[in-house]
């Protein structure tokens, strides 16, 4: 299997969507530019999600100006744990998770202490746009730090497992859970070494995982099986994925959700150009599923009821 044409043929058979096809046929066609701010600015996303009745982490403070950074220490005096993130950040860049305090200093999730000066410098970089797309000046969100549901404790190393659902015209088409590893330094980014585990849409159980480019069955750090886990609140998660369409008005959108111990699923962010690694995690191409929904669209049978759409997805999109 070294012949590129043979590989291309196989990939076409399983309906793998490449980046060119994703952009040309789905992102450009179904995602109108004017709706991008709805997902690019996490502040707007949060407001829209609250309006739509979707659960989001509580917002503690917003920092828009340089001078507000100094005042922030006072405003979050009472919060033991919180997350600081740039509103336009992507891929988890620049996110600062504070899990405790030690006098004037903040303790980060990796255990390191951070002095006030260093903290302020990091925030100032965020405001200058160091982490935002295109480097335009940004603003900062300070919000509730999600307390992770312990169901994934056995299969994640230190950080934040999150669930990614791709939703097309409001139909959840594919889902995966991303598990941090020692290699990814607690981050849930696949290209940094996190494991992607495909989820079967009808049942909400994990089917298979991929680490780098190789299929895996156990978590490399904890040795626990990652296959056959059943995701709690699955129907609720699918419904969130379905509602993301009305919320964002984007036809092709990725929804990142985390499971909180107390509050259940919470929407972290939406993505107008969700990555394609989810196909590796599921061992399935997206195209056949997307075409089914395009067929509905052509017949004019698209549903405007999120629950109905979830039902359709559960009946049609199993991951084998």
């Amino acid at each position, binding site marked *: 299997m070294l012949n590129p044409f043979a590989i291309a043929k196989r*990939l076409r058979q399983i309906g793998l969507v490449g980046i060119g096809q994703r952009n040309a046929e789905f992102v450009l066609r179904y995602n109108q530019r004017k709706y991008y701010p709805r997902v690019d600015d996490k502040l707007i996303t949060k407001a829209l999600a609250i309006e739509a009745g979707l659960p989001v982490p509580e917002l503690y403070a917003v920092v828009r100006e340089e001078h507000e950074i100094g005042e922030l220490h006072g405003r979050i005096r009472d919060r033991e744990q919180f997350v600081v993130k740039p509103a336009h950040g992507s891929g988890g860049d620049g996110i600062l998770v504070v899990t405790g305090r030690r006098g004037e200093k903040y303790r980060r999730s990796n255990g390191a202490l951070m002095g006030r000066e260093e903290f302020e410098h990091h925030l100032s970089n965020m405001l200058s746009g160091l982490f935002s797309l295109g480097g335009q000046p940004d603003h900062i969100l300070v919000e509730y730090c999600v307390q992770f549901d312990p169901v994934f404790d056995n299969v994640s190393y230190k950080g934040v497992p999150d669930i990614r659902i791709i939703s097309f015209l409001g139909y959840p088409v594919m889902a995966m859970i991303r598990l941090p590893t020692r290699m990814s330094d607690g981050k849930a980014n696949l290209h940094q070494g996190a494991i992607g585990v495909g989820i079967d849409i009808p049942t909400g159980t994990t089917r298979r995982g991929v680490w780098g480019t190789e299929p895996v069955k156990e978590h490399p750090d904890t040795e626990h099986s990652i296959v056959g886990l059943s995701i709690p609140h699955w129907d609720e998660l699918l419904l969130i994925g379905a509602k993301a369409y009305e919320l964002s008005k984007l036809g092709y959108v990725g929804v990142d959700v985390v499971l909180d111990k107390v509050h259940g699923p919470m929407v972290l962010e939406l993505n107008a150009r969700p990555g394609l690694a989810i196909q*590796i995690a599921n061992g399935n191409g997206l195209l056949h599923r997307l075409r089914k929904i395009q067929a509905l669209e052509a017949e004019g049978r698209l549903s405007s009821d999120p629950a109905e759409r979830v039902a359709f997805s559960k009946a049609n999109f199993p991951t084998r």
Partner: protein
Amino acid sequence: MKKTQLYVLAFLLATIGLGATWYKWQVLKFPMLPVEETEVWEIQARVEFEARRGPNRATLRLPDNPPGFTILDERFVARNYGMTIERDRDGRRVIWAIRRASGPQALYYRSTIYRDQFSEQRARPPEPPTPGSWEEPFATARITLLEDVREKSVDSASFAGELMRRLNAAQPTEEVRLLGEGVRTIDDRVRLAVSLLGDRQISARPVYGLLLAGNDANASLVPYLQVFDTSELVWRMVDPVNGRIGWPDNFLVWSIGPQPVLDVDGERRGRVSFSMQRSLADALETAKARLEARDRNLIAYSLLDLPLQAQEVYKILLLVPIGAFIMLILRNLVGIKTFGTFMPVLIALAFNWTGLLPGVALFFVVITMGLLVRFYMERLKLLLVPRLTAVLIVVVILMALVSVVSNRLGIEVGLSVALFPMIIMTMVIERVSVAWEERGPGFAISQALGSIAIAALAYLAMGQKHLQHAIFVFPELLLVLLALTLLLGRYSGYRLTELFRFRALAREAAAKTGA
């Protein structure tokens, strides 16, 4: 749906671009290759005469739109002489005049001549000559000769050809010997033929020209006989020796008619000598000069007429689309990731000044040193914009340092680094350092190497002499490039790196189907 529109647009653009290029190449004769050369002759006419007391005036006849050639350039060298150029029915001539002169005089006319396409020009029919009256026995001899010739000819040209042959015959007939008394040179024979043809009311005239060959320091004008063809309305050339009809190769018509080529104060005084030199000129320059001689507007609205400095700028600027196109292929078809969209193209442009290897080396030296500074700045907790400014200043200082040091060591490349776009360097340093911290050194270095690799590739493509030349002379080719870009704009197949990335999936699919 909209795809047809795209295809039509791309097709139109490509057609216009290719069509214009073909027209310029084939019809206007712009050279496709950079080193193409054309045959060009430098011709000099040297006029010598002994000045007499008082005012002197010399008239030299000049070539006037010689068929098959274009005069690219003319220069007149005559110290202290006043000069006027006249043109009338008989052609063109230069008149040199001086109020006071003494001793031998030398005046020069020089021209550069380019071989052009030959086309026979229609002419207005001249007044038919009136036959002269001759004494016996010449009258009878002429009539007999002309009757003989008439038997063997069908039209005026073949008549003249046959006549010329008889006048040149090794064993001339009685009549020719009689008429040829005192006729020695070819020129005399041509003039005799003109007079004989006049008896039959056939318009004929002598023409004088140069037979262009290689280099000849001492060439002289060659006479030819021209006969008017009343049916085709053209002047036919008749070889004065063998009577063959048709234009000889390499014949540059200098003057037409019996008037002398040089005339000094109305006398046949002085001497004119010719020299010629064949040379190969840059075809581009020649095409430019030739079109300018034909129609100024053709050149006035092209890049070739810009001031030289602007031309140099455009030579480089027009390469940017090529680099960008390569970038497009490598990013969208191959799938290589780079810093920024067009950063590699800009780096490639910078290589233009430094050369490839010194450029890459300099790039790495400056970026590495800049990175060290940047990491130190990180510890100082500067805000973003001041930090960028500080890095920029350090980059400039670094480059100055590199230049000074390499100059001391006698390496020349360091000097050209001054033109290396500093802003690009600064941005690269910032991006590399952010990527370094956020994604790890491996990611940052691999992306930096990807950028450099694309930059090097783009540089090599942009450095192609043929490509450079073609784009500069035929900027229409950019339309073709635009068409290709539009077509690639809708490419939605897999990228090469994606095949690698998803190859495990393909293997699995193959295993499942049992193939």
